[in-house]
């Protein structure tokens, strides 16, 4: 099973189904057909990915390891859920939406496997291009604004990444990851790469596009942007920075990431406290979560990053389920307003949706025994193992602050009443419900299966 094509096949299947979507549009314009095709392609890719979950293979361009496969599985799973939840979408040109959904997911799958700056850049750009257009679907002033901001910042970050890549090449004379050099140019390239990918991950000084884009674009698209797209950037950064730490630069890079992560979590949480708009609150909490995600870079230089690397996978699983699910749930309020008052009485009107959303919010707040708690638990445990217990305290305090704004939403859902009707359909409810059940079940299972998350990052280039 070490043929390269076996590993590339899932991504190719996604691309192929993306093209099938385009051709299908010559036959019909009904949304559900395209949704079916996307779900079918997603399931096929999911099965193909499952087949090589234990396989390891690398050449100079790609590195196929279990960590990448788990992340790809998550991306494909979320894509299927999004395609399912948008079953009743009724806008013109549905083929654009679903084809770009498939293509962007396919590119993300390739991106998390890339171990060469050229292939990283190409796949990263391919997925970004697809998401720029997705952000503007369906056509309206609001989504156009979101997409425009996203595009301008995305172009800027791409150029910064290009700068980083060229510095990298000058200092190490290669594009492959895993080579280091002690020169100051190398450090410069790391800073450029960190800033470039930090835009995508919405780290603190580079986060402002994220708020407007996540709020402005349609909720299923926000679900994709705030989870899959972010985790792709995270995986790329881990692949880049995992090698940089044993070569005398670790002190600087670690300090840099410590400062960035503290600012990111604190800023995200404190600003989320005052938001009255739930979607905007979720956007800010997504910035805060980027802070938790970036904690992994502070632990990498420690003596044993194994726990941290296992923990980041667990946190990624939790994050994609809970954040993706919360944004998909917001689709119900898209037409009538997403202010916190608009969620009043959801517990009476749509009990299933309210229950699922509550579980997801509990998970985001880190209440056991949900997956969100387990992710944070193992991440913070790895911080303490890396002798950064004071950073763990800051992270834990941040997590405690966040309880306020998540539970306020629960409060409105269950014990405020309003006569306002809530739009949306059962497909969204079932999508959110499936994610919330997974959050709960995996949260209980994780202590049992954590051993299988050890040593799944293939480190040799």
């Amino acid at each position, binding site marked *: 099973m070490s043929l390269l094509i076996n590993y590339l096949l899932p991504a190719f299947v996604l691309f192929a189904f993306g093209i099938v979507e385009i051709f299908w549009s010559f036959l019909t314009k009904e949304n559900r057909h395209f949704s079916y095709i996307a779900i079918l392609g997603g399931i096929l890719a999911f099965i193909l990915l499952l087949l090589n979950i234990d396989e390891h293979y690398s050449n100079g361009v790609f590195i196929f390891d279990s960590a990448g496969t788990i992340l790809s599985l998550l991306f494909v799973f979320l894509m299927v859920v999004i395609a399912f939840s948008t079953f009743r979408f009724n806008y013109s040109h549905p083929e654009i939406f679903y084809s770009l959904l498939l293509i962007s997911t396919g590119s993300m799958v390739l991106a998390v496997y890339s171990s060469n700056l050229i292939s990283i850049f190409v796949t990263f750009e391919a997925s970004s291009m697809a998401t720029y257009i997705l952000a503007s679907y369906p056509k309206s002033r609001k989504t156009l604004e979101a997409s425009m901001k996203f595009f301008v910042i995305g172009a800027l970050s791409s150029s910064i990444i290009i700068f980083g890549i060229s510095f990298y090449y000058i200092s190490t004379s290669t594009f492959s990851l895993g080579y280091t050099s002690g020169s100051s140019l190398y450090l410069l390239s790391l800073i450029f790469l960190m800033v470039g990918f930090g835009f995508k991950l919405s780290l603190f000084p580079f986060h402002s596009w994220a708020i407007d884009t996540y709020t402005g674009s349609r909720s299923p698209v926000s679900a994709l942007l705030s989870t899959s797209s972010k985790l792709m950037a995270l995986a790329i950064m881990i692949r880049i920075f995992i090698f940089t730490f044993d070569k005398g630069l670790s002190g600087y890079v670690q300090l840099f990431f410590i400062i960035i992560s503290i600012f990111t979590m604190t800023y995200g949480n404190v600003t989320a406290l005052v938001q009255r708009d739930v979607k905007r609150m979720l956007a800010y909490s997504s910035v805060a979560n980027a802070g938790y995600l970036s904690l992994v870079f502070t632990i990498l230089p420690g003596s044993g990053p194994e726990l941290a690397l296992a923990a980041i996978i667990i946190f990624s699983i939790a994050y994609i389920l809970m954040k993706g699910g919360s944004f998909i749930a917001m689709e119900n309020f898209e037409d009538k307003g997403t202010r916190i008052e608009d969620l009043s009485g959801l517990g009476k009107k749509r009990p299933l949706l309210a229950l699922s959303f509550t579980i997801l919010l*509990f998970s985001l707040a*880190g*209440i*056991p*025994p949900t997956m969100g*708690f387990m992710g944070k*638990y193992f991440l*913070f*445990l790895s911080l*303490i*193992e890396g002798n950064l*217990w004071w950073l*763990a*305290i800051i992270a*834990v*305090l941040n*997590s*405690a602050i966040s*309880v*306020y704004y998540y*539970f*306020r939403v*629960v*409060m409105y859902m*269950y*014990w405020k009443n309003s006569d306002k009707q809530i739009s949306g359909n059962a497909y969204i409810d079932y999508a959110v419900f499936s994610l919330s059940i997974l959050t709960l079940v995996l949260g209980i299972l994780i*202590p*049992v299966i*954590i*051993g299988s998350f050890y040593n799944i990052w293939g480190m040799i280039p």
Partner: protein
Amino acid sequence: MVYLLLLLLLPLLFSFIPLFSGRYSKLLSSFLSFIVLLVTSIFYFHINESFKTLAFYGVDLNIAINYLSYPLVLLVSIVVFAAILYQDPDIEGSYFSYIFFLEFSLFGVFMSQNLFLFYIFWELVLIPSYFMIGRWGGPRKDYTALKFLIYTHVGSVLMLVSIFILAYNYYTIYGNFNFDYSSIFKAIPSGSIYYVVLAGFFLAFFIKLPTVPLHTWAPDVYVESPTTSSMIFSGLLSKMGAYGIFAIFMEFGDPELGWFIVSLGIISLIYASFSALAQRDLKRMVAYASIGHMGFISISIGVYFISHSTLALIGGMFMMFAHGLIIPILFGTVGSVERSTGTRAIRDLGGLTKMMPNLAFLMTGGFLASLGLPGLAGFIAEFSVVVGSWETITYISFLVVFGLVLSASYHIWALQRTIFGPYNNYLGKIGDMIPREFWPMLILFLLVLIFGIFPSPIYNLFLQYSGGVY
């Protein structure tokens, strides 16, 4: 043994039943809670049971009951049974579900033998409590529910950091993760990190207790909740903090800390008593009384830290049990006053004994038990603490006695202004306690009386736990 697991899971199973039982939910819930009470009572003859599964990275299902946790498990079953009997039958079935879920979480807190499991159950308590305050609370319920949540959650997550540090320290010494109570405390670190660990546990337990500078969530929660919830919160949630102190915080045994905790306890007792004197709302006064009594637990553990006085320690432990039985009577009778007269303001009441003789009997009994009258359960606890602490803190004990006098004065004064004295004719003709209010209160009061005269069934358990002879 697997029966213990069944006891733990029984309330969880029962929490689903009231959802589907419609208008019979109260009847069914009373019956179910009685079953839990029966099963718990049977375990009196099987204390020291345990149940353990295989561990994965130090995380396992490890539950047991011992001489400290059994009385609390029993207390939970008794108070939940009484509270469900007391509840108005008009309420939705889901309220009873939350109560059973809370009972499950509390069982978990008291039974778990593993810090990881302990933390999970500790946090799980928040969810039903949050909904119970927020959905069925008084006019300021939104504010109160969030305040309660933030206060206790901040304490809990700091405890999580402490657990992490302990686990990591254990890992560096022994090479594997292990969260069991029997092992993890071998790895208490030294140096500055020691104080971080200590602070995490201290805040978690003393916020939940509550003790004075950290108490402000408690009066709001007790007052804004409906009577049943007040009975459960004041009687049982504060016991989580107390249990944490006796089962976990005691492992630190730091003599320097002893004086700090004793002074905190005394301040708590006196401050809460003065606050209670000043209250115009009867329910709020009872809430402060509850906080004041928790001061005895701080005093007892502080004294134990300084001089290892077992008598004071057992007094504190017995205080948990006695207070858990007494405080629900106070809240229950105040609830009856409110239902019958429509007000809780002390100055609008007066001479209720004329119209409500049963209430007058139970309320007087409850208040006297609360102030520590000999012959009732509260006295045993307070007496043990005061006598046990005399050797250690000598003249400072006068402050404790001063607190007791204050406590007696606000109880008696409140009785005088509400149920004795001339009848306030503006109240008109009012009815006495109705049966659903009277019987659970009577059961609790009889228990207080029995354990006041014959405390040894419970007292001996605590004695065996602390292994002391005095």
